[in-house]
């Protein structure tokens, strides 16, 4: 690799005044035990600012999914510190954690994870119901949200009647409908073709980035790198580099795309 522009630090520099959404320090996570232990995270330092889209890149198996699972509170870390808007998941009880997650975090999965027997509006209404909104109000709000992503005329259809890109738009609606402050997306475009993936990213950028919301997008799809505010590169269980743009990571040839 050629010498690149100096990497932006993974953690906010001293004297930083930008509000921090996610703060990780020396986070470790092992899977299994004994000889078969996999050291998935080996001391991750990372800050995610409010209002930014941070992309997480790196070779397969380097720990990206594990890291966002810890950040999103669906997986317990082994050691280190990790807080989301000042709250540490491991200091919360099981039900507090569930509630905090339901209020604060929106999820977009690679495989959409929509419930096939519910209509898309019903799927989108789930986070609202979990936050105590009544069913008819939740459905109405879900339909409004679907209209924003261009699916307003298909609200009563089953998810599998929709194309992959449309299903991911439904998933994005579900992630946004209850107005969470942090969205985590794991490979949101890798089940989609290039063009559709690009449109999904545009949608995330335009709709999801409103307010002061933060997005963490795990991807290995280099064609979407230019949507990012910062790119965190992971390797072998640590964040080894955080850069401002794709060309800082891979050089001008890559970023030219």
């Amino acid at each position, binding site marked *: 690799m050629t010498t690149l522009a100096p990497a932006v630090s993974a953690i906010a520099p001293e004297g930083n005044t930008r509000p921090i959404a996610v703060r990780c320090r020396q986070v470790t996570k092992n899977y299994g035990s004994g000889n078969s232990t996999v050291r998935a995270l080996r001391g991750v330092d990372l800050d995610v600012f409010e209002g930014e889209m941070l992309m997480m890149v790196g070779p397969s198996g380097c720990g990206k*999914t594990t890291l*966002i*699972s810890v950040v*999103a509170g*669906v*997986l317990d870390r082994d050691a280190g510190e990790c807080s989301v808007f000042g709250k540490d998941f491991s200091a919360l009880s*099981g*039900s507090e954690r*569930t*509630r905090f*997650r*339901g*209020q604060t*975090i929106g*999820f977009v*999965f*690679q*495989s959409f*994870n929509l*419930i*096939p*027997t*519910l209509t898309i509006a*019903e799927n989108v209404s*789930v*986070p609202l*119901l*979990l*936050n105590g909104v009544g*069913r008819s109000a939740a459905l109405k709000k879900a339909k409004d949200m679907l209209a924003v992503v261009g699916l307003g005329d298909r609200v009563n259809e089953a998810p599998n009647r929709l194309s992959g890109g449309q299903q991911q738009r439904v998933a994005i609606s*579900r992630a946004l409908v209850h107005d969470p402050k942090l969205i985590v997306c*794991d490979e949101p475009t890798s089940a989609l073709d290039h063009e559709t993936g690009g449109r999904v990213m545009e949608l995330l950028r335009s709709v999801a980035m409103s307010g002061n919301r933060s997005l963490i997008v795990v991807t290995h799809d280099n064609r979407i790198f230019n949507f990012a505010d910062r790119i965190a590169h992971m390797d072998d269980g640590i964040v080894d580099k955080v850069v401002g743009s794709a060309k800082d990571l891979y050089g001008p040839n890559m970023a030219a795309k």
Partner: protein
Amino acid sequence: MIYYALKMLFGDKARYLGILVGVAFAALLITQQGAIFVGLMERTYSFVADTPQPDLWVVDPDLQHHSDSKPLVGQKLFRVRGVQGVEWATPMFKSFTKMRLPSGERRGCIVVGVDDNTLVGAPQSIDSRNGLDLRKADAVLVDRADIEKKLAVRTPDGGTRPLQIGDVLELNDRRAVVAGTFSINPSFFWDPVIYTTYSRAISYSPQERKQLSFILVKVKPGQDIATVAARIESATGLKAYTESGFKWLTASYILEKTGILVNFGIAVLLGFGVGTAVAGQTFYNFTLDNLRHFGALKALGTPNKTLLAMVLTQALVVGLIGYGLGVGGAAAFGALIGGTSLAFSLPWQLLVITGVAILGISIFAAALSIRKVLYLEPGVVFRG
């Protein structure tokens, strides 16, 4: 979320039908076999049910069932009448005897003799030209259900005709005239039953020293039946059963002496076992199919108690529908065989028992699955 849980259940047609079939099968088999069993049991004591007038049946302490022959000495009747709290006491005689039909065939039958004066103990539904026909000379009553079958009369042309009022029978070589017919509940016991008066029944039976089968007792109004029964027992050394006690004496004897309980028990357990296995397994598979959806719901912030309620609702609703189908099927079966001689009785208690069994199956199925959901790591949603 509960509504969505039901949509998840009904939306998965194949699994839903699979679970439903398991539950409905169990409910059907338990109810249907149970109803046949109850029907047969009711037939064992139908004689007691057909004799509703007395509060107590006073019998020999060693009597094992209502068709057992352990006659009492006649003076016991007067001893019973003298017991405090007894309104009235009448004799009843019941015996096997030989019968000869008008066309000459011989067969066995049961002759029941009721009190000559009061006719207490006679069947409730008598069809004769005159209710008092039993008092005419040599009069006997026959079972309407028997006149075309067990008591059919052979005609010279080789056919048969029903036994009719006015036909003359021989009972133990003595003349008996059919004075009417009666209806009673179908009985577990095979031989035709003939009612007549007490004194005539004795003459229609082989001579015996003791000629009193039961003493039928009515307790004075306001008196406690159990107390009077105890008084009778201590005064006479006999045993005094209430109607339900006497029914149970017979039913329990049949249960003990035949394999009937075991047979039906096996059928019912089989229904329960197969239903539990099929419904439990299919429901478990249904939950496994939906595990990644439950995982997603969990990640999105669904509390465990909501997930528990969702799974439990799914199990209970499919259980309820399966119960309805199974019990409905059993009732339809009962209606279908209603006109035949097959035993079938569907008391509400049986519906409760089936309901409890199905509830057990549903809870078992839910319990099998709920562990999977509760211990599910929400992180699975991020994995392929």
